[in-house]
């Protein structure tokens, strides 16, 4: 039974069990209360315990081979970076530069070729949508370009 085990799967089960234990620990820290008057830690404690049990159960579940196995780490990395760049740049520098950085990073994640003109078109289109829909109509407190770096007179 232990002959051909899937190491990645087992490791993942251990992560799940570890997560359950962490939730249990958090629940105990929060005070479990009594059955008559349950404390803020009671429900988490139960769920953490359930998670541990399910994680142990998963260790014994036979895994099917999944055919589609194209890992896309480059995509994951670039798209994550795109969201992070947008979040970091949005307030200090402004909506337009944040959008530009985001689009460039998402485009970098694509395996296909994409012409610079198309990229410029996407950015310009999103600037228009961002400004008219989100700033003008929905009144998000955002500046196209931050007045700290581009003072408005």
């Amino acid at each position, binding site marked *: 039974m232990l002959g051909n085990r899937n190491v990645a799967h087992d490791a993942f089960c251990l992560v799940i069990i570890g997560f359950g234990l962490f939730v249990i620990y958090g629940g105990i820290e929060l005070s479990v209360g009594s059955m008559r008057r349950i404390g*803020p830690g009671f429900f988490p404690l139960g769920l953490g315990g359930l998670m541990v049990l399910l994680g142990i159960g998963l260790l014994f579940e036979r895994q099917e081979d999944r055919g589609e196995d194209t890992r896309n780490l480059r995509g994951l990395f670039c798209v994550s970076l795109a969201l992070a760049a*947008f979040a970091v740049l949005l307030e200090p520098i402004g909506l337009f530069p944040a959008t530009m950085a985001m689009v460039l990073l998402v485009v970098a994640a694509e395996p296909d070729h994409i012409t610079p003109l198309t990229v410029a078109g996407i950015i310009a289109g999103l600037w228009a949508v961002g400004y008219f829909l989100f700033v003008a109509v*929905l009144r998000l407190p955002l500046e196209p370009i931050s007045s700290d770096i581009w003072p408005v007179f």
Partner: protein
Amino acid sequence: MELLSNIALGFETAFTAEALFYCFLGCCIGTFVGALPGIGPMVTISVALPLTFGLDPTVALIMLAGIFYGAQYGGSISSILLNLPGTASTAVTALDGYPLAQSGRAGFALFINAVASFCGSSISILVVMAFAPAIAEIALRFNSTEYFAVMVLGLVAACTIGGGSPLKSLIMVVFGLILGIVGMDINSGAMRYTFGFLELTDGISLISVAMGMFGVAEIVRKMAGPSQDAPKSMVADLSLASMLPSRKDLSLLWLPTLRGTAVGSMIGALPGAGPTVAAFMAYATEKKVARDPARFGRGAPEGVAAPEAANNAAVQAAFIPTLSLGIPGDVVMAILLGAMIMHGVVPGPQFISNEPAMFWGLLVSFWLGNLILLFLNLPLIGFLVKIITVPGRILHPVVIFFICLGSYSVANNVFDVFVTLIFGVLGYLLMRRGFHPAPVLLGFILGPMMEENLRRSLVIARGDPSVFLERPASAVMLGLALLLVLLPLRKPVVRILRGRQSQDGPPLS
């Protein structure tokens, strides 16, 4: 007669200019994103949700629901014309719709699709009108003990009926329930799992979880997909004359449509089995009752009519548990329920009696929306086909942009963009390990309600947990839930008991 006066109230609510406009808008957006392969109604509703905060709650829900059922119409257009299902629930339609289109009867296939969808929805809306208030009335007699049991049963059923590994789905549900705990405890004021982030006081944003796990993760997965090139659209005769079916066709199709509707209405009301399962079941039923099953897959009109009636009926029927019990059967319903809560509407059995104008207005608007879709769809098909052919590399940055600003706009805070990012990465990693993100959202929405009902039950029972087994309704529901959990477990247990013999046993599904 009460029903008639209620429907009149519904018409009053749904026939205001504002409601009609947003119903129309929701249907248009839904058709559009439904037709686009890759962006589902799920992501669209999460993006649109913060944009509706300024609207009246009824109008907001009318629009968000319009996106959901509009997407069913749009999805079948790409299935029929391009053999490329826009949404999973319309994948079956491609089996016979695409061969029909190839044989030059694209217009006819689209016409059947539109009419069968409309019939399925309309009948199913009547089913909702009949059943939802009745179920709510029964549920009003529930106290917190039964309510807790219903939620347990709903969550377990959603995990075990839908297919895939039930164990993995259960893990995802529990993960969702745990995510729902994060934030300040309403009873004690204690901060739970916030790690010192003040932004998490109100909990993790539903929109961030949904957009991260479905939107971001899905785009990363799509990027690695095989072909990114725009599919070639078929040159098809889409004139009105080509669409109209003959009398013979009509007499052939009304029964499959009705059967599809019946299957869809039943399946749709169950938790866990949404429009996709309904469409597959309806198709299988047609194949079974057909005199000549070999025609299926080669352009049998029934193969379009039945699954289309079924998936649209299922979409409407899914509102039965959502509106009568406050328990969502699938992810999109979970998001809509989240939208109700964010708009300050309390879901649950009291909803229909507390907010009659909203309930009946919503149902009437569904019907109006389907009518709009019936007439909107046919003339717009040519235009939609052009849009479907937009390649992913242009679409992806646009979707990420909406996800970024959508998460930001919930609280005007970039913190939520980072939360979306974390859930995107997590969603992708989980998906690669064969975990589906849908149950996470169900657990996330129901978590706080479950805890509250558990707490109340224990207070009422003076701390005696056996109260859940002493009350008959709750005992039956918990028993059913336990049965659903144990049934799929029997195989691995037998395997473990048998030890080594099992090595060449049949693979688990």
